[in-house]
C-alpha cells in the first residue's frame, strides 16, 4: 500500500512535467498546425539559460522566470523567421505537407548542434532549490518532498494562469478563435499572424518550465545530448496525443495518465520497459480512441 502511494506520487510529479511539455506541443499545433519537434530543443536551450542565470545569481527564483522568457523569445523567433516564411511558401499538396515537420526536426538538430558548440562537454547545473528528501510519516519516508511539492505547485500555478488567460482575456479569445478558424478570425479583425507568434511564445515559455523542472526533478544537470530531454520530448508528445492533441485539459490528463502508468511499470515491471511502454500506450490510444481520451468526435475544446 505504501509502495503504491509512493509510486503514484512519483508518477504524478513526473506526469505533471510531461503535461507541461504536452501543453507546449499542443499550443503550437493549435496555432499553426505544425508538429513542433523543436520544442524539445527549445526546452533544452532555455534550461541552459536557466542554469547560467542560476550560476550568476544563485537564485532559482530569478533563473526560472528568465528561462521562461528566454524560451518564449526563442520560440517566437523560430516561428517568425523560420516557420512563417516556410508555411507561406509550402502548400498542402503531396510531399509539401511534410515540410514543416522536417523543418522542426532539422531545427531540433540545429539547436543541439549550437548548444554542443557552445557547451561541449560542460553541463549546466540545475540542482533542486528545495530539499528533495521525502516527508516522513510514521517513521517511513514517502515520495513527496518539498521539491516535489514545489514542482506540483509550479505546474498547477502555470495551468491555472493559462486557463485564465485562455478563458478570461481578449488575448485568450483571439488565440482560441485563430486556432479554430483563422480565416473567420481575420475577417473579424484579429491579427492572426501576430496571434500565432504569441501562441508559439507561450508554448516556448511553458516548454522552458518543463525543461527546468525535468532537470531539477532528475539528474540536476543538463547537457546538450541529455537523455532526460529526449524522454521529455517523447513523453510530452505521447501525452499530447493521448489527450487528443487539440486540448489543453487533454494534454494535462494525458501527461498525468502517462506519468502514473510509467511509474507503475518502473516499480512493478522493470525500468527497461518504460520507453516501450510509452509507445505501446500511444499505439493503444490511437487504435482505441484516435481522438484522444477526452476529444469527443469533431468537438474541439479550449
Amino acid at each position, binding site marked *: 500500500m505504501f509502495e503504491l502511494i509512493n509510486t503514484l506520487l512519483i508518477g504524478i510529479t513526473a506526469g505533471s512535467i510531461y503535461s507541461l511539455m504536452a501543453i507546449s506541443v499542443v499550443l503550437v499545433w493549435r496555432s499553426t498546425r505544425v508538429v513542433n519537434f523543436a520544442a524539445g530543443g527549445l526546452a533544452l536551450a532555455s534550461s541552459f539559460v536557466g542554469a547560467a542565470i542560476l550560476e550568476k545569481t544563485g537564485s532559482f527564483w530569478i533563473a526560472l522566470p528568465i528561462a521562461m522568457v528566454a524560451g518564449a523569445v526563442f520560440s517566437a523567433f523560430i516561428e517568425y523567421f523560420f516557420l512563417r516564411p516556410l508555411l507561406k511558401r509550402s502548400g498542402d499538396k503531396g510531399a509539401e505537407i511534410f515540410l514543416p515537420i522536417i523543418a522542426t526536426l532539422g531545427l531540433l538538430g540545429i539547436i543541439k548542434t549550437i548548444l554542443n558548440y557552445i557547451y561541449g562537454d560542460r553541463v549546466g547545473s540545475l540542482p533542486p532549490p528545495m530539499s528533495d528528501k521525502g516527508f516522513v510519516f510514521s517513521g517511513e519516508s514517502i515520495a513527496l518532498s518539498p521539491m516535489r511539492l514545489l514542482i506540483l505547485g509550479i505546474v498547477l500555478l502555470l495551468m491555472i494562469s493559462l486557463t485564465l488567460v485562455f478563458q478570461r482575456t*481578449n488575448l485568450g*479569445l*483571439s488565440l*482560441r*478563435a485563430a486556432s*479554430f*478558424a483563422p*480565416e*473567420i*478570425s*481575420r*475577417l*473579424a*479583425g*484579429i*491579427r*492572426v499572424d501576430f496571434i500565432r507568434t504569441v501562441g508559439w511564445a507561450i508554448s516556448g515559455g511553458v516548454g522552458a518550465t518543463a525543461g527546468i523542472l525535468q532537470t531539477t526533478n532528475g539528474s540536476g544537470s543538463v547537457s546538450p545530448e541529455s537523455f532526460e530531454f529526449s524522454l521529455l520530448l517523447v513523453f510530452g508528445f505521447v501525452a499530447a496525443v493521448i489527450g487528443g492533441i487539440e486540448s489543453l485539459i487533454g494534454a494535462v490528463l494525458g501527461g498525468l495518465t502517462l506519468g502514473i502508468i510509467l511509474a507503475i511499470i518502473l516499480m512493478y515491471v522493470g525500468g527497461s520497459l518504460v520507453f516501450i511502454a510509452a509507445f505501446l500506450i500511444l499505439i493503444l490510444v490511437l487504435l482505441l480512441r484516435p481522438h484522444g481520451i477526452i476529444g469527443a468526435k469533431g*468537438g*474541439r*475544446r*479550449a
Partner: protein
Amino acid sequence: MLRIENLTVDHGAIRALRGVSFNVEKGQLAAIIGANGAGKTTLLRTLSGLNKASEGQAHWNDHNILHSKPEKLVRHGISHVSEGKSVIPGLTVSENLELGSLWRRNRSESAKSKKEVLELFPRLGERLSQRADSLSGGERQMLALGRSIMSKPELLLLDEPSLGLAPLVIEQIFQAIRDLTTTKGLTVILVEQNAMGALKIADVGIVLNLGSIAATGSAAALKDDPAVRAAYLGF
C-alpha cells in the same frame, strides 16, 4: 462610395473575374446575382482582402482596398461575412460576437454594439452562453451577421446569407439586412443565389456571368427584365 474598375482575379490558370467595373453609392444595397461559378464569391473575397487581384482598382471612400489584409480592411470599415454561416463553432455565442469588436479595444463601445445586435436578433440573447455549433442554421446566420455588426462596419460584404435556410428564416434575415441599410446607413453588397429574394430588397442589381458583368441596373428594373428573368429568376 465603392468604386471598382477593371477588376481581374485569377485562380491559378483560371480567370475568375474579367475586368469587372461598377460603383455602389453609400447607403445602397447592391445585389450581385449570377449562376454558380460566375465569380460572385471571388468578387467578395477580393474586396475583403482574402483573394489577390491580378489587375484593376477598388476604392472604398477613396481608400485603395486591394492588396490589404482582411484584418486591416476591417479597421477601414469593411466587414465580410463569408459563405456558409461563418461562425466559430467551438466558441460561445457571446464569444463569437465579442470577437468582432476585439480590434476596437473599447469595452463600452463594444457593449453598445452588442446591445444593438441583440435588439436586432433577440434570439441570440437567449443563447449567449451556448456554443455556436448548438445553434440552428438561421441562428448561425444571425450570429455571423451580428459578429460583423460588432466590428462597426460601413461596408458589409455578405456571401449567400440565405444558403440552406427555410423560407421564413430567409425572409427574416433579408429584412434585417434591409433594415441595416435603411436605419444605419450601411452600404451592403449582397451576393445571392436566391436572385428574386435579393432583388426584392436591393436598390441596385449586378448580374455576373462567367466572370464578367452581364447586366446592371436598378433592382426593380432587373427584376422585370425579360432576359434576366429567363436566365436567373427561372420564369
